[in-house]
């Protein structure tokens, strides 16, 4: 069974990678298994300066999902390049850097900074983080803004750029087309949906930031729908994510049009989940009559 996938800048031995923000920089999960088994790793978001993020509580549990408002806490791009990237690269696994910013200029500078290292294979442009006050959500919901930030980043880097789309929009196809036009090499979708939970006893939102991003199986039908719609209107590949828990979910994303799949929230419940999915995937593909991952991509579009 051939489960390898070729994407711009990424030769993946399998289509499975941990999603940004759900795997840190791999250190903790490397104690559970050899990260070399992964198709790739998407790192936690990098900003120009170190960020502390939002006040706590930062997470809440929901039905078949969770809310988070971490607020892009990270040690800053320089530190990531000097201490985290080499660690991940030591597993000989392609590293994708997720980059975020409050201004186009910040995005550009973060992207540029990753030119320093040759251990990063691609950038994932997080234009959709709902948990930061400035910038974040604007870039992700306005096609003109999305286009601008994508162009700026493309100018600043030689690396392939995957733009991560926000599902909090009326028209996801319009957003996808805008960033494709701006030169994106691929898409990542979906980021979290903005949600909230009330604490009945304290009479206020559970999450200190009030709103948080909804992830997990609860949002999978929305992810599948958006990928299905977008796939028919763009020619760049899609890294799919949103609620993947098992190999069957991966096949569902492939059928809808994803070329690779990221696993986020599931890592918190089962730290071995990526490894287990990778091991199971060939059997699942076989069970449903596929001879390779490539063969399944977009096969569910009717």
């Amino acid at each position, binding site marked *: 069974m051939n489960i390898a996938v070729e994407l711009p800048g990424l030769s993946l031995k399998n289509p499975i990678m941990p999603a940004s*923000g*759900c*795997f*840190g920089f791999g*250190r*903790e*999960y490397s104690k*559970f298994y050899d990260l070399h088994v992964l198709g790739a790793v998407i790192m*936690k978001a990098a900003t120009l300066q*170190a*960020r*502390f*993020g939002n006040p*706590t*509580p*930062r*997470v*809440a*549990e*929901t039905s*078949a*999902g*969770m809310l*988070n408002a*971490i607020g892009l*806490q990270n040690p800053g791009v320089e530190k990531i390049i000097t201490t985290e990237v080499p660690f991940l690269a030591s597993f000989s696994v392609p590293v994708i850097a997720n980059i975020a910013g409050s201004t186009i200029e910040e995005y550009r500078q973060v992207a540029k900074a990753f030119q320093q290292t040759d251990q990063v294979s691609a950038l994932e442009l997080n234009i959709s983080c709902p948990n930061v006050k400035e910038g974040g959500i604007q870039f992700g919901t306005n096609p003109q803004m999305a286009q601008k930030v994508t162009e700026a980043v493309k100018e600043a880097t030689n690396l392939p750029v995957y733009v991560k789309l926000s599902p909090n929009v009326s028209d996801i196809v319009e957003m996808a087309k805008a960033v494709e036009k701006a030169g994106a090499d691929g898409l990542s979708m979906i980021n979290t949906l903005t949600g909230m939970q009330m604490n009945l006893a304290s009479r206020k939102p*559970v999450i200190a930031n009030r709103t948080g991003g909804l992830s*997990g*199986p609860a949002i999978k039908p929305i992810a599948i729908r958006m990928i299905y719609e977008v796939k028919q209107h763009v020619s760049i590949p899609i890294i799919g994510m949103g609620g993947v828990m098992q190999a069957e979910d991966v096949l569902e994303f492939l059928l809808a049009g994803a070329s690779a799949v990221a696993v986020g*929230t599931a*890592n*918190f*419940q*089962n*730290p*071995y989940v990526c490894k287990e999915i990778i091991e199971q995937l060939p059997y699942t593909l076989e069970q449903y009559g596929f001879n390779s991952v490539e063969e399944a991509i977009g096969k569910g579009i009717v």
Partner: protein
Amino acid sequence: MQQELRIISKQKIARDTVEMVLENESISQVTVPGQFLHIHVQGHMLRRPISIANVDASKNTITILFKILGEGTRKLSMYDVGDKIDVLGPNGNGFLLDNTTQASILLVGGGIGVPPLYYLAKKLTEQGTVVTAILGFQSKEHVFYEEKFRELGNTIVVTNDGTYGEKGYVTNVSDEMLPIIDRYYSCGPLPMLKAVKERWSTIPGYLSLEERMGCGIGACFACVIPTDDRGGYKKICQDGPVFTAEEVHLG
């Protein structure tokens, strides 16, 4: 480590409070007081952090005590003896036993913060340290493990409503009732920890903190606590849950 632990006994020991003894070889051998298990409850997305309240390394058992608070702990309380529960652990750093001095130690526990102090008291007394425990509960029906603490050292129980023991908060216990203390260890709700830190501000102390968790292993940054005003932080699940009283800002 992720493992399936078999429940070998389950008992209600106070109002809404359940004691569960779990069987497992490896975890019981390596655990230190203050560490926690990150427990998966069927049908729930996130795991629940629960402190290790006792370990019997010879019998390969681990005891947890938990309060039925929401859906997750309610479902956990309905697991039967013989069922297996999926846990990650032992997670976190645990209390520094600091066995260099023959010190007089104060343990201050509030409600469901009491459990980790029991295993700590056992380990401390094993090494010859003298412990005094102040255990605070809401009311009489919430009190648990009083006898077990008494077996290890002088124990003062206080209840908020005065229905048992002294009336008031753990910090209301007057100095006359206590020996000279070299160091304290505390676990309980945040307001209590703040009061404890203030009440015993002149002696070194260790605080075990709580926060809502995602991964429970240090990867997601859900459970940070600031260590200064300049962006310094620690992760409760990985660097904690135990911190020195000075190193954390309780807000």
